[in-house]
């Protein structure tokens, strides 16, 4: 919750570290930032799933999900794909540069409610950004969950974010990580094929499981179909929506799906909520 009396005024933050996750036209760069104001830093509370408006004075601001879990420390992480004016300008920033941040916004993944359950994340491309905090949160509190399975795919190995972290994850039995890319590549030792079909290959049981999916609209559509085939109940399935938004605080109007504002009532939704909103998967 933004503590400012004026919710439009952002905090100033400093980039501690920044690195490219992927390469190419729509590459992703991750920023690790800390708020400059120590009080604000202390008061900042966010939960997995929440977002923040990140921008630069003189350029503009855009909504991004906070791609780290509060368990990781006193900083924020954003993984930003180059898409247009703001993101292009953000990509030019490096450690030491300043940003503006306002947030955290939106609802959260109910990670506490999920305790005792198996967690299954299914991500594609930059869609792993909102899932990463869940992964990190669950990892940090692994004893309270019944396990973590992660499915993550991208077009090519170059389009996979957070590669180094996955390396660290393999070789543990309480959590499993399945990576896939669309087409065969030299030196690639994991799966090849689309995420929805990998899901079917793995056929996780819906029993005491929460499935969270995030990625390009077309992937989500098929993942949902397949989860239904695997008998997941509607309220066992979560996803996030990323409609265009400007204010982040339920005023500017554009992010609605039906009567819900993605910025306030979302971005986290259960399939049970979304399935009756015809616009949700438009």
């Amino acid at each position, binding site marked *: 919750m933004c503590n400012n009396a004026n919710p*439009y005024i952002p905090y100033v933050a400093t980039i501690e570290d920044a690195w490219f996750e992927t390469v190419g036209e729509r590459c992703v760069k991750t920023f690790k930032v800390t708020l400059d104001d120590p009080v604000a830093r202390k008061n900042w509370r966010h939960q997995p799933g929440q977002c923040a408006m990140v921008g630069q004075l003189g350029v503009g601001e855009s909504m991004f999900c906070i791609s780290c879990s509060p368990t990781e420390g006193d900083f924020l992480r954003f993984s930003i794909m180059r898409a247009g004016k703001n993101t292009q300008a953000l990509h030019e920033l490096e450690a030491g540069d300043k940003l503006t941040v306002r947030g955290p916004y939106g609802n959260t993944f109910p990670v506490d409610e999920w305790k005792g359950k198996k967690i299954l994340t299914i991500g594609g491309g930059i869609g792993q950004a909102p899932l990463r905090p869940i992964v990190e949160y669950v990892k940090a509190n692994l004893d309270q969950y019944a396990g973590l399975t992660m499915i993550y795919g991208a077009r090519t190995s170059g389009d996979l974010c957070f590669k180094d972290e996955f390396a660290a994850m393999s070789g543990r039995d309480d959590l499993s990580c399945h990576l896939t890319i669309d087409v065969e590549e030299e030196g690639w030792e994991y799966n090849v094929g689309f995420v929805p079909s990998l899901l079917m290959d793995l056929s996780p049981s819906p029993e005491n499981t929460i499935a969270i999916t995030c990625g390009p609209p077309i992937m989500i559509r098929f993942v949902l179909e397949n989860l239904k085939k695997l008998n997941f109940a509607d309220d066992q399935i979560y996803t996030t929506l990323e409609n*265009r938004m400007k204010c982040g*605080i339920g005023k*500017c109007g554009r992010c609605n799906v039906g*009567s819900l504002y993605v910025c306030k009532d979302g971005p986290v939704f259960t399939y049970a909520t979304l399935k009756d909103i015809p616009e949700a998967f438009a």
Partner: protein
Amino acid sequence: MDMKKVRKEKFADFLATLAEQKLYAPQKVGESLRFAPVTDSGKVELEMSNTTVPPKSVFFPQTETLYRYEVGNTEIQQPAMGGVDIVLGVRPCDARAQVIVDSLFGWDYNDPYYQERRKATVVGLACNKPCVNCFCLSLGGGPASTVGLDLLMTDLGDAYLLQPLTEKGEKLLALAGETVETAAAGDREAAESLHGQAEQMITRKVETAGVAEKLPGLWEHSLWQETANSCLGCGICTFLCPTCHCFDIQDEVEGLEGRRCRMWDSCMFKEYTLHASGHNPRPTRRERTRNRINHKYSYFVQKFGHTACVGCGRCINYCPVNIDLVEILRQVKEAL
């Protein structure tokens, strides 16, 4: 509360006393009527059916600075907020509309810019002659509705009857001092009769009950395509609507001085929902038209409990291609 009146010959003086504070009233700007700060009371125009641009432009200006900064620096300066004390000449429908918009700017996060301006005293002007497309009656309003007003004026011909409705309204009358006088015995009746006559004049009517419930079922109805066929996708119906409140936020830089500001946006523009990926959840005017009506008559109802339309008729009056909300509502009612 005591009713007063101001004679027309004293009206200019009345305005002048009010204008010592920041007073907004309908005036001609370019070729159209809208609310503007009063510098010359002679320019105030109350012989109108309604202003082209609703008074939302006072509470929620079309372009508004959120804050300023110097490029390369991180210091943020808030602009002075408020700057509006009295808004005079507001039609009852527009006043009701503002109350509707209040729920949006007040839910959860408070919008300080808006709220600061909303502190102004709102002086209404009852409609003696509603326009062709007024259908406020169908939405629970009326030519003399007092919702959202601090004071209601009624044009009695040679004078305006001033009916205070709130404390703010009373204060204003106190401020007006000598320029107003106590209303005569028959004035109230005269006004009420005018209000009644005005109500009679409103011929456009449509049953709005049940629309909210019915709309979700009409998601794929051909009516949206048929309506959208001729729609231009312009900003008229939304910019001029007193309840439409969508905005965009942009940074603007001049040399090293910059500001982040917001400006009206419209759900009828295709860029409005366009995603960075090129994907657009509302790709054509069909979806956008459907959203506009649904937003007003269904989503807003679900979220805030009332329709986001007051029947002012502006969207009908000004739509260049005769897309007629009343007609759409009628079709919704008739649809199977």
